[in-house]
């Protein structure tokens, strides 16, 4: 391996690693607040990339139908639960929150149309369409079993992946999408070219990580989410609405997923079922941080990026297998040095 190739591989690793960092942050966020190991997080990323890809091909993205279906379902679930609790008077409000508001980006997309969109408009529409997916899925799938053991939530998340990836095949078809680069050209640093695309990805990842940090550290809403993450019962006692906290966490995470999907779309061809593979890489990164630590999760994600790019250099056929097999040494490391022996007292089962 020459030094140039080495640098290229590192460059590649930093680019993909930065995207995995964003995903790892979203995954950790959801787990901390709701205890859901959201395996299908990658599907949101894939939906985002596929949506942007559809706009580029001047097609109406299937995401609009998914949002509408989920909004209808979420409203029915909410209305049903209000009915059982004899709070029928709240149903109109539920209609506003769960059916009308999520449908706004869909209506907007139909109004603007999918033809001849400028890049900023299609990016904004993509984010607006992916955002509602988070809270809607939470309301339908996870909120009804919010107190279930982590393992049940995990099983539900895995089953959910197959449902929404299957729908993606229906909406987007089996072909892969890859958008054209947002920016072209290199920035020369000491005789070595760094693609502007890479700089864009890394700075976007950095900016959104920073925004998350500020949100959690300095805003009341962020602190409330952290409180729920640390002690659900305690948070409820001081008046934090834990159900709403779950929805907010999913909303934020969906936002991060949308960004990650947009960033990944010019660098990787995304198929309807890529979500799981991409998402799992974010997961392997999060495992480094034990699902709890944001900075360690970010470090882990970069490591995954490195393993992936060097793995593909040595054996492109086995690169994915190598990345997933990497979880074994990572887990071993946590067990030996970090003591991952965190409470497995599943007394609630």
């Amino acid at each position, binding site marked *: 391996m020459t030094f140039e190739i080495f640098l290229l591989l590192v460059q590649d690793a930093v680019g993909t690693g930065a995207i995995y960092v964003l995903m790892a942050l979203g995954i950790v966020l959801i787990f901390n607040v709701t205890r859901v190991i959201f395996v299908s997080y990658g599907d949101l990323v894939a939906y985002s990339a596929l949506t942007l890809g559809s706009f580029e091909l001047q097609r109406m993205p299937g995401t609009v139908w998914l949002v509408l279906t989920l909004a209808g379902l979420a409203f029915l679930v909410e209305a049903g639960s209000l009915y059982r609790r004899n709070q029928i008077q709240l149903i109109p409000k539920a209609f506003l929150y769960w059916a009308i508001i999520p449908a706004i980006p869909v209506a907007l997309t139909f109004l603007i149309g999918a033809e001849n969109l400028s890049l900023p408009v299609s990016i904004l529409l993509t984010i607006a369409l992916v955002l509602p997916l988070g809270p809607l899925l939470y309301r339908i799938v996870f909120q009804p079993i919010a107190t279930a053991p982590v*393992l049940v939530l995990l099983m539900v998340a895995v089953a959910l992946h197959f449902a929404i990836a299957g729908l993606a095949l229906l909406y987007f078809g089996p072909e892969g999408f890859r958008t054209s680069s947002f920016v072209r050209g290199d920035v020369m640093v000491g005789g070595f070219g760094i693609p502007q695309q890479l700089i864009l990805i890394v700075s976007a990842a950095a900016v959104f990580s920073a925004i998350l940090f500020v949100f959690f550290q300095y805003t009341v809403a962020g602190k409330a989410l952290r409180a729920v993450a640390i002690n659900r019962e305690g948070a409820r006692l001081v008046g934090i609405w834990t159900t709403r906290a779950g929805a907010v966490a999913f909303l934020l995470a969906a936002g991060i997923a949308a960004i990650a999907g947009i960033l990944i779309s010019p660098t990787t061809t995304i198929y309807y079922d890529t979500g799981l593979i991409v998402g799992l890489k974010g997961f392997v990164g999060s495992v480094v941080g034990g699902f709890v630590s944001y900075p360690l999760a970010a470090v882990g994600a970069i490591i995954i990026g490195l393993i992936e790019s060097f793995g593909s250099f040595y054996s492109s056929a086995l690169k994915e297998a190598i990345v997933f097999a990497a979880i074994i040494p990572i887990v071993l490391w946590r067990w030996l040095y970090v003591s991952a022996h965190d409470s497995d007292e599943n007394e609630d089962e």
Partner: protein
Amino acid sequence: MTRAFRPIAIGLLAVAIAVIPLLFDGFIITLLNYIGIYTLITLGLVLLTGCGGITSFGQAAFVGIGAYATAYLTTAMGWSPWIGLLVAIVLTVFVALVLGYITLHLGGHYLPLTTIAWGVAIYLSFGNFQFLGAHGGIGDIPAVSLFGYEFDEPGKLYYIIWVFCGAALLAAANLLRSRQGRAIRALRGGQAMSESLGIDVFWVRLRVFVMAAALAGIAGWLYAHMTRFVSPAPFDLKAGIEYLLMAVLGGAGTISGALVGAAAVALAKNWLQDLLPLITTNSANLEIVVFGCLFILLLHKSRSGIVPLVRQYLPFKPDMTPPPATADPVKLPEITPPERGSALLKIEGMTKRFGGLVAVDNVSFEVKAGTITALIGPNGAGKSTSFNLITGALNLTSGKVVFAGRDLSGVRPHEVVSLGMARTFQHVKLRPTMTLLENVMLGCYQRTRSGFVAGALKLDNAEERAVYDEAMRELARVGLADKAHELAGNLALGQQRVLEVARAMAAGPLLIMLDEPAAGLRSLEKQALAQLLRSLRAEGKSILLVEHDMDFVMSLADRVVVLDFGRKLAEGVPADIQANPAVQEAYLGSVE
């Protein structure tokens, strides 16, 4: 369903399975072959996930290893399928041992997540190794043959599949009712209890994991010689979750649930394949969407599965017959108690620091054989920490714990009980879905030796009988014999506490450590408990208890040790302690 009915039901089922190929052909047989193979795979998950509480999404990968092992050996090497079976089992067991050894130390949610990762890694490897045919797979796999007879049609292989399946179901049912089976079922709900009973939790987990993998490996072998062709697709994560769905749907934790779940999913799949094309042109894709939604709905509405649901409506009684008596009965080992009055437990300078906090500071005392010693003190005095230090649940920072003449430093928690120290817990730790009898039988774990094979083949009758007798004796002693076959979860708290005492007694200890045994008990229950403890003392047992209830302690204990802020404040007979001004001050504040 009583025990007398069970053999009849199993016999009828066996006959039905045997004659089906004579009555039906083609499609039904193929479907049943798949159900048989799925049942084997799901059975592994029933043991692993349903009973042992270890969720694995990687079961399909083990099926793949078994299938590819035999496919490669019988085609590229031209070996006999029976050697293929041997290698399929050995290889899956080996891979499971390595993966399990590394990952089974992990608790909670890490473990299932790692199963996804290595499951995907193994699946991806199949499609990328040229010698395994890459994405094209391996074809022309020979049929299984026995003494020149070729099992080359579905209707013939059918018998091999169901012989394996039936044998595995029976062995698993036997296993669950044996010593190791109880240990497997006790895995769910935390390690502390199991370890206190002498169960090496990690090894039990590893064995179940390997067993589940071996079943999957056998299923993979059957699959390869049934379809005569293997490719990566049937071993992906989707298959892994389908097997999990079968286990949960059937009723994870019940052996028959494996068969029911496998059949239900196979039939539902089949039905969907007929139905969906009528609705949409994209039926192949929708199938998985429908499955995903059904699984989510199942987990939302009914997590217990079909078998437990149906059982509610059947006259299903637990099996109450004791294991048959054998010609030469086994006697459970007893530890010879030391002379009454000699020091059984000696604690010297016991100290525990958590960072800067000194929770227990240089505490020394003794428990004499045949006495009741009470450890008391205000909240935060370090009583529970002391308790955990003595039982080995925590490591000492400095000092020494000597029990029956042996220094306990370096002795692991699950080994302490075999030296003659049994304990109960402040927060009762029982297995609510096991009967009282089974809970107490768990207590005998370290006094018995039967392994997995003996349990699965029912070679453990003599020992089981001894354990049964011992457990019934302890239940009778605490006054719960009439409820022996009820579920422990149905007991009131007071009864749960004495059930824990019975379980501790079943371990045949010299010293019983009771952590707040009277907490939450009503007055009458406390009197009964005190009576029980006195009778144990009269038999020569020694007792160390932590307790808050002063009346209880003072009327019962021979000696009282008072802790305050981690230090020993006083020690003596109850009357002296009650008169001690320092103790009064610690409890009531200064009396100036």
